[in-house]
């Protein structure tokens, strides 16, 4: 398959880009941050996404979606990054369909997601940084499972209708075996949720499971056998975050290039200074290379290639680094005004940092590549 978007994908990019530029903006990010205690996204925007069909990209047509793949979902995410659109898209419209699609929960949840009637959150992290270890326990009993433990950094967990929870049904510590995935209703009893606002104005929840009882039918897939689906979900999540980071990098780059052309000092546009030109050109190269890595990872996900994990790690590391470079150069090249909340470049910096951390940062993925390559 050529490493290119096809004509339909180019159309999707144009449609999504135009729609998102019209219906979301950095101003929304400030409004969400300054507006008290909201859900971390704008419900009307979420419903617009649904009407536009964008929530169904990865959902089968039989469940009301478009039945497309990860390249397509990535196109939408990239445009979200570029426009700093805030929503639970990644967990609800990407992770949830990926996992629930082939499960007995598909019928119940996917049509709702496509319609914008359900927000899904992914409860995986238990440490201060992304780590592939699960300690939260799910004990099986006659009535179902009892969940005990804590999850953190559950994005949109405080308003989720459904939590996808990674739990340990047997084994200890960093065992690969003994993991299971559960579909837990957001309003479950004994589930203590503490929302925390993040630097990018999004909201993540700490969730304490204090012997939360759920039914047997909450199990997704097979008990103790979730390592495969979990690795897949983490790859999907990392590639999705990489796509969004790519968009953040592009957005920051575009703002900065416009500023370089417009802002004059010493009687010339500052974009005519060679030192800045070379840095801008280097940034361009980093973004282009990252773009290739991201597309490669998305195609690998769609093809279920054996190289998927490495391709995803490359994509996440490259896109994170490209976005961080774009926002650092962006703020510096904006000079004083780049430090003000009135300009948008700082919002890109905050979003880049957040996305770079999710599903493992560049250092984590470089290490993972080294491990997978045996050194």
């Amino acid at each position, binding site marked *: 398959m050529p490493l290119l978007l096809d004509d339909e994908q180019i159309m999707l990019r144009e449609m999504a880009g135009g729609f998102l530029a019209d219906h979301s903006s950095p101003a929304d990010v400030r409004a969400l941050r300054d507006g008290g205690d909201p859900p971390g996204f704008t419900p009307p925007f979420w419903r617009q996404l649904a009407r536009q069909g964008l929530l169904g990209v990865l959902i089968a047509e039989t469940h009301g979606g478009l039945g497309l793949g990860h390249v397509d979902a990535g196109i939408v995410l990239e445009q979200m990054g570029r426009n700093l659109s805030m929503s639970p898209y990644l967990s609800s419209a990407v992770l949830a369909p990926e996992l629930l699609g082939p499960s007995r929960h598909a019928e119940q949840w996917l049509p709702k997601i496509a319609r914008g009637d359900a927000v899904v959150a992914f409860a995986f*992290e238990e*440490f*201060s*940084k*992304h*780590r592939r270890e699960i300690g939260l326990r799910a004990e099986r009993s006659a009535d179902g499972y009892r969940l005990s433990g804590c999850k*953190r*950094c559950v994005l949109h967990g405080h308003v989720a209708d459904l939590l996808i929870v990674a739990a340990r049904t047997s084994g200890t510590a960093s065992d690969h075996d003994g993991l299971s995935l559960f579909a837990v209703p957001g309003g479950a009893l004994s589930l203590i949720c503490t929302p*925390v*606002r*993040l*630097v*990018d*104005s999004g909201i*993540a929840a700490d969730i304490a499971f204090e012997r939360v009882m759920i039914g047997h039918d909450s199990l997704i897939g097979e008990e103790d056998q979730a390592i495969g689906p979990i690795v897949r979900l983490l790859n999907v999540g990392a590639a999705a975050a990489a796509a969004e980071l790519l968009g953040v990098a592009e957005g920051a780059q575009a703002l900065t290039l416009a500023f370089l052309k417009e*802002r004059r*000092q*010493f009687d010339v546009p500052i974009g005519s*200074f060679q*030192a*800045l030109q070379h840095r801008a050109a280097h940034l361009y190269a980093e973004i282009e290379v990252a773009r290739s890595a991201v597309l490669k990872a998305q195609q690998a996900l769609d093809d279920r290639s054996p190289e998927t994990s490495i391709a995803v790690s490359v994509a996440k590391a490259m896109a994170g680094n490209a976005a*961080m470079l774009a926002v*650092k150069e962006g*703020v*510096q090249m904006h*000079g*004083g005004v*780049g*430090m*003000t*909340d*009135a300009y948008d470049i*700082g*919002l890109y*910096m*905050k979003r880049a*940092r*957040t996305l770079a*951390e999710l599903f493992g*940062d*560049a*250092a*984590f993925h*470089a*290490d993972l590549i*080294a491990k997978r390559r045996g050194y």
Partner: protein
Amino acid sequence: MTGELDLFRDETRAWLEENCPAEMRQPVLDEGDICWGGRNFAPSSPAQKQWLDRMAARGWTVPHWPAAYGGGGLSPEQVIILREEMARIKARDPLKSFGISMLGPALLHFGTEAQKLEHLPKIVRGEIRWCQGYSEPNAGSDLASLTTTADDAGDHFIVNGQKIWTSYADQADWIFCLVRTDRSSKHRGISFVLFDMASPGITTRPIMLISGYSPFCETFFDNVSVPKSNLVGELNRGWDVAKYLLTHERGSISNMGLGKDQVKSLSAQATEQIGLDDAGRLREPVLRAEIALLEVRELAFLAMTERNRDEVTAGRAHPAQPSMMKYYGTELNKARHELAMSAGGFAALEWDSDRSQQGLVPRAWLRTKANSIEGGTSEIQLNIIAKRILDLPSA
């Protein structure tokens, strides 16, 4: 001579031991712990006020200034000893002030005797808090293109225009300000004046930064009257004063690279947050390498700061060396905070939770991004190094 210095050290140590309150030996954790002085100074604790007053009484808030202007009148060797003894007991600076770090040196060099006698003692005692009126919205790095005007009105000037990035202008008592007194020459049409921020016609508006803090203001002048006796240096030669002052400012900003204000080293923070593996290494091997490489540079820059200070004391520093220090120190500090964010992980993303102390870590990270902009951007420093130290040809 060495004997005298030893004696000075003993006396200083004993005096500090007796006079520095225990509370003033704790690390500075936030803005409230810094003493800025000024008319509206509200001490955060009685100890803070006591420490300021005791040090000011000896002139030790500014130990190297002449005693005639309220300073400590110490020799360079004595100043080093005082600093070392203060560092030994981890004593806080009794007073932080743009009067000390910026205006003072310029007044000592360019001011009239009357100006020195009027302003310097108040700076030493922390009575007047100064702010800086340099940047303007359309000037940026091209500082000399400023357009705030001071028109001649007999015995005074009438000042009109707008400044930006005036640090704490909303809390300052006086301003030192660059104004245009001749429109026909870019650099030779600028003058350096001082005036009271309580003068009629001045308004200030804080600027909200990406860190969520507002340490800077926009400041507007609408027919502000400034006595001509407040002109520092010659009319239209304020650019010389400005450059002199900027060089001093750079010296103080470069210290930001030291991480001395951090209670814990980056690696200690990371170890606490991420933990060690079985081999006793930080659990994240690539991040560990990045931190170690950063710490190499940090320790080297600590030595650089020491050498630079000794070179300045010995009169052997290149006059443009502050540009190098400012460039390296601020870029290093930015890199350090990037890694502090990485080490902090999800916790470092929390913006306003109580447990994150309202986002101290991410806000500090964002704050550092200004280091390489304020006081002359990194790009300006590199230009200066290229031309003044490396003697590379102009374009």
